[in-house]
């Protein structure tokens, strides 16, 4: 069973590569269709396998925590939708996206399944490597974008290798600490290295230099793989890691406090930076960076509300990023690849994408009745337990995100129409997908209790 769970995505990756090598997706329509069918079917099988009682090995070498099961199932569901959107918007022509997505999912399963923590780090690095294949899958005819995409990928590559290195070194010191508890000075080293490592992975200010270019230049759904899939899985790993080692953060307020300060400051600075960006992708990157900073704050907070809020926010972030990138992909497809930064007044031409994007933006800010509300509310509640300044800082960050989002939304969707611009109508399947995602955003906003309950129960299981 364990072998099947681990090997299936990689075997399917190999199969899809061979299949698309023989029947090139740019020539055969059926190959393009199967490029979605194979990975989605594989992910569905994996979701079923993950929940099998026999999935966990008796010797403890392969264990899915309940938290991992919930998140992997949810993330794979979203990835399936991302694959369908890629198919609709013509992003599967090169034949690289499907295998890269499957390989990333395979490495994330391994990362959250294998108990050896050193291997987990290495698998997260591998997931980053595979995502680069999708990031550079851009149209080479547009030289300017191509150069920027490669530049962004090289930066991202450096960030993920440094993330792996710092986390690997932190784990080595942690093991030394376990063998000799007298070396308590190592606790600070382990926390500092793991926080720096995860800040690089999650692109938390000031370690977020790689993210703006990645989101601005990479194809929409490839950016989702980075921020919505790998980074959210990394949050799950961090939550598990800190819960299993309470001496690092939860039993050590003196060490936790600087991490919380760093995270909140990072969120505020990210909000300020988001205001000054000249591209929508860069603006989204900074707000995502700020949101991950708030998640880090919640995870490091000693209050139960903070940790629950952080995990719920991770769910919300993945869902909203999929919605936002779906809408942006539809806009890009309908406007024949013209950069969205050069367009205005799209609301009349693409009303569903505009509504989806607005819901996504407002959800990211945490407006009531949307999925972002419960997570943000719990995070701010946790900040309030620390003091007034903390909650004001959190509120300021969210206020800055709101201004940045509305400014861009107004410019791109509400301004004057571009004269002579020829656009395609929104594809019906894409409209359906956007509306389904909007429905889930509203559902989670109006009725977050079941998800919060599952996450809380899963966390208690880890602790």
């Amino acid at each position, binding site marked *: 069973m364990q072998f099947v769970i681990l090997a299936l995505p990689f075997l399917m990756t190999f199969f899809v590569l061979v299949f698309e090598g023989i029947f090139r997706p740019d020539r055969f329509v059926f190959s393009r269709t199967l490029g979605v069918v194979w990975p989605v079917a594989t992910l569905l099988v994996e979701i079923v396998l993950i929940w099998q009682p026999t999935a966990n090995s008796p010797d403890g070498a392969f264990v899915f925590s309940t938290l991992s099961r919930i998140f992997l199932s949810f993330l794979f569901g979203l990835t399936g939708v991302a694959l369908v959107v890629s198919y609709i918007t013509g992003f599967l022509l090169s034949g690289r996206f499907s295998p890269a997505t499957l390989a990333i999912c395979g490495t994330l399963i391994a990362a959250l399944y294998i108990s050896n923590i*050193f291997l987990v780090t290495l698998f997260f690095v591998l997931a980053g490597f595979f995502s680069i294949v999708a990031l550079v899958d851009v149209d*080479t005819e547009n030289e300017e974008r191509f150069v920027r995409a490669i*530049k962004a990928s090289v930066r991202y590559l450096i960030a993920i290798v440094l993330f792996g*290195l710092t986390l690997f070194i932190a784990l080595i010191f942690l093991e030394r600490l376990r063998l000799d508890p007298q070396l308590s000075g190592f606790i600070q080293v382990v926390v500092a290295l793991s926080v720096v490592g995860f800040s690089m992975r999650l692109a938390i200010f000031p370690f977020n230099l790689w993210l703006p270019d990645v989101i601005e230049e990479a194809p929409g759904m490839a950016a989702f793989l980075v921020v919505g899939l790998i980074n959210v899985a990394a949050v799950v790993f961090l939550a598990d890691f800190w819960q299993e080692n309470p001496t690092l953060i939860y039993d050590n307020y003196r060490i936790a406090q600087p991490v919380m300060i760093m995270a909140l400051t990072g969120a505020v600075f990210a909000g300020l930076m988001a205001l000054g960006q000249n591209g929508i992708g860069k603006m989204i990157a900074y707000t995502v960076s700020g949101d991950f900073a708030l998640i880090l704050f919640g995870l490091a907070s000693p209050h139960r509300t903070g940790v629950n809020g952080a995990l719920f926010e991770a769910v919300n972030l993945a869902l909203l990023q999929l919605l936002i990138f779906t809408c942006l992909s539809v806009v890009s497809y309908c406007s024949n690849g013209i950069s969205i930064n050069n367009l205005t007044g799209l609301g009349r031409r693409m009303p569903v994408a505009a509504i989806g994007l607005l819901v996504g933006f407002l959800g990211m800010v945490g407006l009531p009745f949307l999925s972002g509300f419960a997570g943000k509310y719990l995070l701010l509640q946790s900040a309030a337990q620390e003091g007034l300044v903390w909650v004001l800082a959190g509120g300021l960050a969210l206020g800055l995100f709101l201004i940045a989002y509305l400014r861009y939304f107004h410019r791109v969707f509400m301004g004057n129409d571009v004269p002579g611009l020829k656009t395609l109508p929104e594809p019906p399947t894409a409209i359906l997908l956007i509306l389904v995602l909007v429905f889930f955003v509203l559902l989670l906003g109006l009725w977050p209790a079941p998800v919060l309950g599952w996450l809380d129960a899963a966390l208690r299981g880890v602790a």
Partner: protein
Amino acid sequence: MNFFTLDAGNYGFFLGALLLSLVVIAVYKDWLLLTPALVVQYLVMAVIANDLNNTAARVMLGPTPLAVFLKGMSGVVAGLILFLTGYAILFAARGFRREEAEAEASGLGGLRRFFYREEAARLNRFRYVDYLLPLGAVVIAVGATYALTTLLPFSGNFLGDFSFYLLGSVGIAIMVVGRDILKLGAGLLVSLNGADLLYSLLRNGDSPLVLGISATITILLALLISYLAILYHSKMKTLLISEGVRRQRKQVS
């Protein structure tokens, strides 16, 4: 002479080889020198890591420790991948020059090609600063390494601490001053090697799975760098990222 054990006779040799290989990787742009230096560095680190690893539970592959074998092999394969990449790029550049010469001979040259040649000549011109900057960075990195080794020792072994800090700081220095994709990749590989050394230094017992995946990461990283380099060169005819961006800015303005 036992090559897997450090003694008074070969200690200086291995340390010298490590330093020299790092200097070559940091300073030189020539593939014929850079990739063998990377392989030498991996082999030397395999020996040093093996000597410093005091674990009782050793996994052996015949007479060779598994850790040494995997580290050495991953270094050789990564070096080979980068060497072949460099060779493929040189080969492509040679073909491009031949096409250019043929176009010139048949009178299809023109002003555009003239400017292109001017630009290529400017880029390929020998400049002292191209070598001095990386050399200075390596000197600073070595100084920082010595300071860190004496101020923040952690393993109780001078050579282990020194090698770990050296690889980390020189790797970062290479990434800071490196201008092309392959050079940045070499910096990443050097830093990665440092983390592997730390694993040997501080871990109790070899885990074949961790060692194997770590070696796989090294090889995959080399493959990814090679992929990015070939992709970029095939379109932009250069490996310098800043050059590609500059050229685009010039076109836009």
